[in-house]
């Protein structure tokens, strides 16, 4: 039983405070759906979870261990799907996928690639080079990547972009299977993806104006010496 949680996360991008005081917790088989207006920090949160960004404060833990303590282990159990499909135009679909499988050290890689291609119904494209793929086919190839190799956590940033209705249903099906096998899925989406009772995390709830946050930081700094002074006085007495 795996447990993925974040406590009191604050995310600062450049000089903008994206969100603060965000906590969540997910267990094996859970799905967390991220909601919020544009710029609320859905992508930032997913990047934090993947380990691409470091939180300004707070911690992300897997089974109680901070993910930054053992990055390789976190990367091995996580599949991240960003906005970009990472497909090389001159390589075939199979060659594109092969690299990511090799980096994960997947055993019986060719069979695993076949299974992933079949699951997304793009097996007929396996010898087609990236440049001839439509945007939906590219997205399916990117989705095929997350089926290759064992993983326990899927971080999907707008996975439905470029997919038709039918593919969205397939994606929902893949997510359901992954959860049934004990996986945790965190995803953001603009359209309704048919996922069974997801936990909803609304990022608008964690938006705090920069002014308030700065004031809070000042309070903490102000408090530190005042707390310290009485003890030093006591020590003197």
């Amino acid at each position, binding site marked *: 039983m795996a447990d993925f949680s974040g406590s009191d996360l604050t995310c600062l991008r450049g000089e903008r405070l994206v969100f603060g005081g965000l906590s969540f917790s997910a267990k094996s088989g859970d799905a967390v759906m991220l909601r919020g207006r544009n710029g609320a920090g859905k992508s930032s949160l997913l990047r934090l979870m*993947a*380990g*691409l*960004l*470091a939180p300004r404060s707070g911690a992300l833990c897997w089974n109680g261990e901070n993910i930054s303590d053992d990055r*390789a*282990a976190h*990367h*091995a159990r*996580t599949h*991240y799907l*960003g*906005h*970009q*499909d*990472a*497909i*090389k135009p*001159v*390589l075939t679909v199979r*060659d594109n996928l*092969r*690299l*990511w499988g*090799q*980096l*994960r*050290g997947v055993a019986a890689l060719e069979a695993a690639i076949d299974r992933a291609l079949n699951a997304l119904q793009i097996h007929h494209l396996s010898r087609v080079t990236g440049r001839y793929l439509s945007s939906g086919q590219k997205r399916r190839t990117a989705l095929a990547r997350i089926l290759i190799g064992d993983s326990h956590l899927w971080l999907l940033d707008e996975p439905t972009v470029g997919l038709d209705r039918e593919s969205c249903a397939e994606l929902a099906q893949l997510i359901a299977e992954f959860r049934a096998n004990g996986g945790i899925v965190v995803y953001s989406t603009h359209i309704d993806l048919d996922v069974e009772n997801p936990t909803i995390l609304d990022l608008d709830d964690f938006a705090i104006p920069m002014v308030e946050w700065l004031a809070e930081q000042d309070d903490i700094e102000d408090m530190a010496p005042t707390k310290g002074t009485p003890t030093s006085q006591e020590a003197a007495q």
Partner: protein
Amino acid sequence: MNGFLAILRRDLSLALRQGADSVMVVAFFIVTTTLFPFGVGPEVNILARIASGVIWVSALLAAMLSLERVFQADYEDGSLELLTLSPVSLELLILGKVLAHWLTTGLPLIIAAPLMAVMLNMDQNGFAILMIAMLLGTPALSLIGAIGAALILGARRGGVLVSLLVLPLYIPVLIFGAGAVEAALLGISATAQLQIMAAILLLTLAAAPFATAHAVRQAME
């Protein structure tokens, strides 16, 4: 180690299929070197005198020309993000990418260098040392260049910026590379210069992957 070979193989097959980069680097090297006889005049003594310096400077500029592309394509299509998130250490993957870069740009330069030496009327005594010095020097150029290439990710007009960042760091390689050939031409031993070049290579081999990985992670933020 599998990850290292996987990225090396992928980058080589990309370079093979796109091809243009290697050809462009060698063509640039040949054209730049050819400009010097036009500039300084066709007197064979002068050309022979400046040959080693000209070849090294041209090689430096040619190597730099291809740097911008080392990470840029992967950065733009999201592959670099996934490489950062791979369970294999990023330093090792970067070493694989740098080796691929050297095989596709450094190695062709070494092969083209003796031809340019002949054109510039360099004495035959210098050829062997020129090749050895370039064999030690060009991998260091790729390693140092990778740091610059990673630092400019996300910057506008990165190509110009990378030259400003990297060229000053190339100076030691230039000094000892040209120095080794000079020594050989004068008939004295070039061992000292070559040893220093080997030391530069080992130092960059040890330090550059870490610096580059750090710059790449920074670019992902």
